[in-house]
């Protein structure tokens, strides 16, 4: 049911804000009506909202936009003493070196592989957890489970990895038990070939609980009457999940997927940094650690900035592509078209 232009013809001031016609998800405006209201009127109407976003805009400006200026160092032999303006300008030399650097491509490849593995193995878990948790009826039990699964999110990676190492490391609880009982030890923490699964497991352990929040919110928005009428019509548990629960979460799932793809090249800097020594850069070097080790640690800031800029550009392309795909699927994605 397409909702017509949401009262655009009606003078905005007279429109009761609280009773705006509901926008249905599938209700993309067929032709977003050209807004007739002048900027002045809109400013006046949205004054309080605009004031409310000022602090956030300032934070974004100071911490996200201003630092972008530093990207210029990717084209320099950047020297902190001479600053951005007086460092030697080298044009594309850093990029030339970067694209000819096998270590860089290796890091890029690792990043993509780790990202893909995490997408497949990690992404569905918070959704499943949310659905499971939603079926728990006792509020007390539900809050308890929620608290337990949220908690690891607040641990730092250093702590999480230390716990993993104490439990599963070469001298950890598990392996000392095996050793003392004359069994072969199990190399978990330093095995390069299974490292991608290890870090996904760590990410699930730490973050999956936190990740369910948005999905729980999406579930809460589903009208219980739908379930009731479906049950009356004889739909079983699985049919209800398939035809009501999942479609109800679809918008949120797609939005999270788009965000995840935009973030695909961020596969966890700290997690990699801490465990890079354990499995070696062959398995744990990703774009972020590459920029750190070859740029910052080596006092070669321009080179690191070039690697970072490359990553930024790819991420931007990914997020636009994912957003476009979401629109094709008839979803909102990041913004409504």
């Amino acid at each position, binding site marked *: 049911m397409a909702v017509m232009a949401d009262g655009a013809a009606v003078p905005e001031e007279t429109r009761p804000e609280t009773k705006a016609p509901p926008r249905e998800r599938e209700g993309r405006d067929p032709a977003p009506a050209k807004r007739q209201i002048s900027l002045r009127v809109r400013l006046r109407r949205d004054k309080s909202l605009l004031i409310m976003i000022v602090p956030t805009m300032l934070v974004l400006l100071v911490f996200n936009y201003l630092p972008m200026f530093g990207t210029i160092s990717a084209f*320099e*032999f*950047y*020297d*902190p*003493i*001479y*600053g951005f303006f*007086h*460092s*030697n300008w080298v044009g594309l*030399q850093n990029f030339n*070196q970067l694209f*000819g*650097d*096998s*270590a860089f491509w290796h890091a890029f490849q690792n990043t993509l592989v780790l990202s893909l593995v995490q997408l497949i193995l990690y992404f569905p878990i918070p959704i499943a957890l949310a659905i499971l948790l939603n079926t728990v009826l006792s509020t007390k039990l539900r809050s308890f489970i929620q608290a337990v699964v949220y908690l690891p999110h607040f641990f730092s990676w250093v702590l999480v990895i230390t716990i993993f*190492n104490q439990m599963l*490391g*070469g*001298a950890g609880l598990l*392996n*000392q038990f095996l*050793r*003392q009982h004359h069994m072969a030890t199990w190399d978990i*923490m*330093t095995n*390069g070939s299974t490292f991608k699964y290890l870090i996904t497991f760590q990410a699930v352990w730490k973050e999956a609980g936190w990740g369910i929040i948005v999905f729980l919110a999406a579930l809460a928005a589903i009208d219980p009457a739908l379930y009731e009428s479906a049950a009356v019509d004889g739909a079983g548990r699985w049919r209800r999940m398939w035809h009501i629960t999942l479609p109800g979460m679809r918008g949120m799932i797609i939005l999270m997927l788009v965000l995840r793809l935009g973030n695909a090249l961020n596969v966890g800097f700290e997690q990699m940094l801490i465990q*890079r*020594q*354990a*499995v*070696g*850069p*062959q398995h744990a070097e990703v774009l972020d650690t590459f920029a750190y*080790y*070859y740029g910052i*640690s*080596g*006092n*070669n*800031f*321009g*080179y690191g900035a070039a690697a970072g800029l490359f990553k930024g550009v790819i991420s931007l392309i990914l997020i636009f592509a994912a957003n476009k795909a979401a629109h094709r699927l008839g979803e909102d994605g990041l913004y409504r078209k």
Partner: protein
Amino acid sequence: MSSTTAFTRRGFLTTSAAVGGAIAASPLLAACGNSAGKGGASTKQGIQAVLPTFKPLANGATPDFPSVSGAGGALTNPGFLKYPTTLPKTVTGKVGSGGTYTGVAPSWNPIPPANNAYYDAVNKALGATFKPQPGNGNTYSTIIPPLIAANKLPDWLQVPGWMVSTFNIGGLVGTKLADLTPYLGGDAVLEYPNLAAIPTGGWQCGVWNNRLYGIPCHTDGMSTAGALFYRKDVLDAKGITPSVKTAADFKALGQELNDPKGGVWAFEDSRVYLYQVFGVPLGGWYLENGKVKSANDHPQLLECLDYCAQLAKAGLVHPDSLAGVSASNPSRFNAGKTLIEGGGLGAWNDGDAKSGIAAKPGYLRQAFPLFSHDGSTPTIGLTGASGWVSYLNKDLSPDQIKECLRIANYFAAPFGSYEYNLINFGVEGVHYTMSPDGPVRTADGSNTAADQIYNFFGSSQQQIYNAGYPDITKATAEWYADTVKYASPVLFRNLNITVPDQYSKVAAGTELDDAATAVARGKQPMSHFQEAVATWKSAGGDALTAWYQTNVVDKGLS
């Protein structure tokens, strides 16, 4: 211009990283840029012409273990079992002439109030106003560049060796930092007897482009990459007296000690400390028939990496050490989870004894006598003599510079002198009380004098002294006296070299260090490292080597 010194001495901050850098071409490179950017170094004759004359001090305290000179110009640090009871004066006559100077140096302690009784006491003795401005040691590398950029350098600046490139000292000498050659070069230094007693190697760390700019601090007459240590208390309890003469002996000892089921492993991952056992050149470079070569190309390196991999694969190295888990408190060695580790000599002191004894009473660390992999005569690489050099501002007048040098002379008073006691401990009864083990800081002294900040502007040759642990001093002094015979300076030792910008990534050699680590831990075959070296060479390593040949070696600096 990228500046680097050929030595690495990150001191107490990141010891393993420092020695890790010993084989990597040079970790101290900045991607810097100014109009020059071409790099360069001093020449041998140029350095000789400006170095101050060395003249040991006659009127200091008498050490229990006097300095021993050995091969390659090495001179061990004097050892003191007890803090001297009589404190001789080493500075006579007027020091300051009423000038006021600010000095900036790093500090890893809470910053004392700007005006305090301790500073006042020192100023009174100096006859000048010296205002120490401690900067947070952990962020020092970011505190100084803005001062340089804004042309607001203090009168006196301390530059730790591992920040030389970050501050681009190569570009600052002569333009912002004063040339001290006329005041200190040759016999001119004799006017400042305590400065003249600083070993020559230290002064060389202050030479740039054939001129003397820096005043060396904490000069170590025999600085080395480190040693291999064992838990003497544990071995004694097992009735084992180690007699390690070869790499095979070392491994055999490890096999005897290893007890994974009991949670005790023989070794920490000690690759970089095994380099000297296998004769791998430290400092990144070596000379063969007059040609400079990268240490990554040295045949012994492959043998050493292979040996390390054998230790790892035999299960003799603690799994956490192989996993790169370095932080634990107490350390695995202190806690007795590993019994043998490589480390800097700085780890063998009273502080280590305190934390070790806290973990287990009776804790005792001992270094293995030097040995070589095949039982032949061992060598130990002599690294940079001073990791801390102070510089004076170019804006000071000649008279002011002379006054500052007289103050530096006061700061460089040797251990056990009246002046040393004052600048390091303050006033008796106020900042410290005298115990049988030497001065003990009061609460006031701990708040203001614990920095020992004056020694960052001038200090005598280091000494071996462990308050309350004379046995450690004795063991250390004896180890040094034995080892000094085998000392051999690393190539480009004490030499400030400025490498051109385009080599900064190659010179950092991150990928080589990674590859060597992976092979030594048994995670990758030897070919992995060989391939990394081949890639490194073609990506600029060969060009960098050629640059060193033309600009450093061919100029007679090897």
